[in-house]
């Protein structure tokens, strides 16, 4: 069964304390892996798309990487405004729909 699992479920960091969020997936053919940010009470906001193993994308303090089985979202020197839930989603080759993970709730304290 196609599955996307994110860990940890929740992560608390001090401002400036770098860390990584994990997204592991098992799908029958990957067309793309997506990272979204979701603030409380709002819809998800697109961050990155990764298509093949070895690919990396960066945006400000965020860097996403992809292997054949998982993706990491690295957060360097986070600030309180980076606090949000980060969702990973995988686009299957067959069926074509996005499968979302349950998210990692990140809290960055000043």
């Amino acid at each position: 069964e196609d599955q996307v699992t994110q860990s940890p479920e929740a992560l608390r960091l001090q401002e400036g304390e770098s860390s990584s969020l994990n997204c592991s997936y098992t799908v029958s053919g990957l067309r793309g892996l997506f990272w979204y940010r979701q603030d409380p009470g709002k819809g998800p906001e697109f961050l990155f798309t990764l298509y093949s193993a070895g690919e990396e994308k960066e945006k400000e303090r965020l860097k996403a990487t992809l292997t054949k089985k998982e993706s990491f979202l690295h957060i360097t020197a986070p600030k309180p405004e980076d606090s949000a839930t980060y969702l990973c989603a995988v686009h299957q080759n067959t069926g074509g729909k996005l499968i979302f993970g349950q998210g990692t709730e990140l809290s960055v304290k000043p």
Partner: protein
Amino acid sequence: DAMVIQNPRYQVTQFGKPVTLSCSQTLNHNVMYWYQQKSSQAPKLLFHYYDKDFNNEADTPDNFQSRRPNTSFCFLDIRSPGLGDAAMYLCATSRGQGHNVLTFGAGSRLTVL
């Protein structure tokens, strides 16, 4: 700014009383999606439209229906809401199949009393 707008943002209904949630988009995207998201859970796809073609997920309850009268608008109808239907309902759009960067609306939070 081009965007996806959902109304209402908050909806309170009684058990069994029908509800309609609306979504409009100014992006001129072909595909519109409805997701259900419960607290601390992954968004769950209910159905999507590719232009006028309706695609229902196999596990979407019959209680949920959708209409897309034109490119810009899509509606989610919940015929007889139960307590288990309380959730955030997210509308999203994408340019087309193979273009799966979704643009989401802010969501409609449904409370069932």
